């Protein structure tokens, strides 16, 4: 009997833990997931470099409500973004669209990489032609030996 009584609080406790699972804040988790996905790549227009998903500013809240509405209307991610761009301009997009003004932005890193590799290869080739076979002169070898002696 004593043992049984001892179980009661434990049972109550576990009941308490299991009973009240908190409800998601969003009415529709599917819509919310898409909202977070879209808004994460949009800029909050009145904040200092914060995404629309993270911002607590009033305008951001309004815009999120609006985006939710668009999602419920069945608009695709692209359509939602196009709508916001038509209203607020490219500034709202954290992932700039590929167009003439941004060719350099998107192509730049690739160009840099290719240029870097070409420079590297041509440098290595030229260098191998120019560099002497023995890297150190006698004098330099002596200096190196001095340096090494100082170490030990």
């Amino acid at each position, binding site marked *: 009997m004593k043992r049984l009584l001892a179980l009661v609080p434990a049972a109550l406790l576990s009941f308490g833990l299991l009973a*009240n699972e*908190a409800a998601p*804040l969003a009415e529709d988790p599917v819509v919310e997931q898409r909202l977070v996905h879209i808004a994460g790549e949009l800029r909050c227009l009145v904040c200092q470099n914060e995404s629309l998903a993270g911002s607590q500013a009033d305008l951001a809240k309004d815009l999120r409500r609006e985006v939710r509405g668009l999602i419920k209307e069945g608009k695709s991610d692209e359509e939602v973004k196009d709508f916001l761009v038509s209203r607020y301009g490219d500034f709202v997009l*954290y992932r*700039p669209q590929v167009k003439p003004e941004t060719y350099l932005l998107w192509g*730049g890193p690739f160009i840099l990489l290719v240029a*870097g590799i070409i420079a590297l290869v041509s440098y*290595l080739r030229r*260098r191998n032609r120019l560099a002497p076979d023995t890297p150190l002169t006698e004098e330099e070898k002596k200096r190196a030996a001095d340096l090494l002696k100082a*170490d030990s």
Partner: protein
Amino acid sequence: MTPELGHFALILSLWVALAQGVLPLVGAQRNQPQWIAIARPATTASFLLVAIAFACLTWSFYINDFSIAYVAAHSNTQLPTMYRISAVWGGHEGSLLLWVLMLAGWAQAVALFSRQLPDAMVARVLGVLGLVMFGLLAFVLLTSNPFERLLPAAEEGRSLNPLLQDPGLVYHPPMLYMGYVGMSVAFAFAIAALLAGQLDAAWARWSRPWTTVAWIFLTLGIALGSWWAYYELGWGGWWFWDPVENASFMPWLVATALIHSLAVTEKRGSFKNWTVLLAIAAFSLSLLGTFLVRSGVLTSVHAFATDPRRGIFILILLAIVVGSSLLLFALRAPKVSLGGRFSLLSRETLLLVNNVLLVVACGAVLLGTLYPLIIDALGLGKLSVGPPYFNAVFVPIMLPLLVLVAAGPIARWKQAELGDIVRRLWPAAVVALLAGIALPMLAGEWHGYVALALALAAWIIAAIVLQTIQRLKAGTGNPPPSWWGMQIAHFGLAAFVIGVAMVGSYEEERDVRMSPGETVTVGGHTFKFLGVEDVRGPNYTAARGSFELSKDGKMLRILHPEKRNYDSSAMPMTEAAIDAGLTRDVYVSLGEPLEGAAWAVRVYFKPFVDWIWGGCLLMSLGGLVAAADRRYRLKARTATKTVATGAMAA
């Protein structure tokens, strides 16, 4: 009186810095020992004067002297002492003064710990630092005087931005500035070597420990800033590719390239020109970062200043620094010897590839950071370049680097053989393959992205283990500290990659409406909401939530996230509560109060997130171990003799 004293000390330091900049340089060029001898005392004098100015400003903050405009704008009587002191660098003027103090401190350190270097060399290094200091002191005094009086004095100060009222403000800016400004020492060594026409292995050896130490501070400063943003901003990210973050990250990328290239210059005498260019670039990027942050051209959390005069001044300073150093470089570079020959497959080549990748990555970040400004300036409209862009271009450039990290230290100098590398590394490849297949499945869902990242991390770690075993077995004695330092730092990189991949792929987030007694579970951890009470802090009131955290029915601890309303600000601040652990953080933050006793609550499960900063810590530790290598502390006489012959050789 105190502010006038500080102001006067600052003006004096400007002229002492000019003397420190000009006389020793001229003396070293003309070989006049008396002028050369001025370098050290002048450095000490300018350091003391700047320190006095800094102390005066700090004192004014401590006693709430609101007759100083800067104090009145950034502090008030309600502010706790700790934040009143660190508010000194909470705004534009004071953070620049901190910049200058750090610069003077670095110069003083060079003056103290360079007894083994030839006097002419030290004079040149200190001279260059003096000139830089002169430029920045002129900037402070002409555009950003922190001692400006406010007449009539304010009754009460405006207080510090609540975002900054956090221990993060105490340690993040000083640490970051130490690194930022430390690049000036690497720069000064490079310029000094160019001036002397002595670009040789000795120069590389002298400047290496300084560069490494500056890099350590920069690494720690960036990591601390990232950690601060993670726990303070309340939305759980750790890197936002904010322009200000980029401003500190770009010098870091170049500095990382620089410490690798310095290794080649020291050991093999190659890449001297390239190393000098990197040193110039690292410091120029530090200045560029200062310009971006301080001119207010960016819209970002850190940009307090909107005075265009300031921007123009730094831009001119930047132009002078870059222009004159590149001119000097162009004059001297053609005379510099190439160093030893090496084959296409050698450690030299691999380190050059490392440099190319790091510099290209830095270029990509620079492009993305400046692009909106350029487009705007050209009148082509306004656009934003954010995290999606940076992730898309930065990560692919970094992947080959992660592959090479394992191979670089194994490859021989001068001439490596592919067969040899393959023979020594194939077990690591097997481990990497297995890790890539198995680990993501153990952690949860299998994604290609996380599999690749974990495979690369396993590849690096396995290679480190293999190298250690092979090295110890070889019977060549205990490897030098610099070798261990490299391995520790590379291990840190692998840990960092694991953290990024795990938290990026397996983090969980729930936004819920909670009434007291309700629970929410995330990543196997259950939060039970116990309620919210009002508490009074030193200068804010807070709604303090209590959450019981448990796992598998076992209570772990009570967490207290807060929603604070500072007396001096209308913006409510979110203070997240975090239970940190080796394999995961769980994170809870309060949103808004809802009807009744319910609150909007956000909880996160962040697997391995602390490995991100732990990895940075290991990288810094590796740097520390390497910089402590005693071969950098040569005896004075030998070094002088060496330099004499070096000068002849040059």
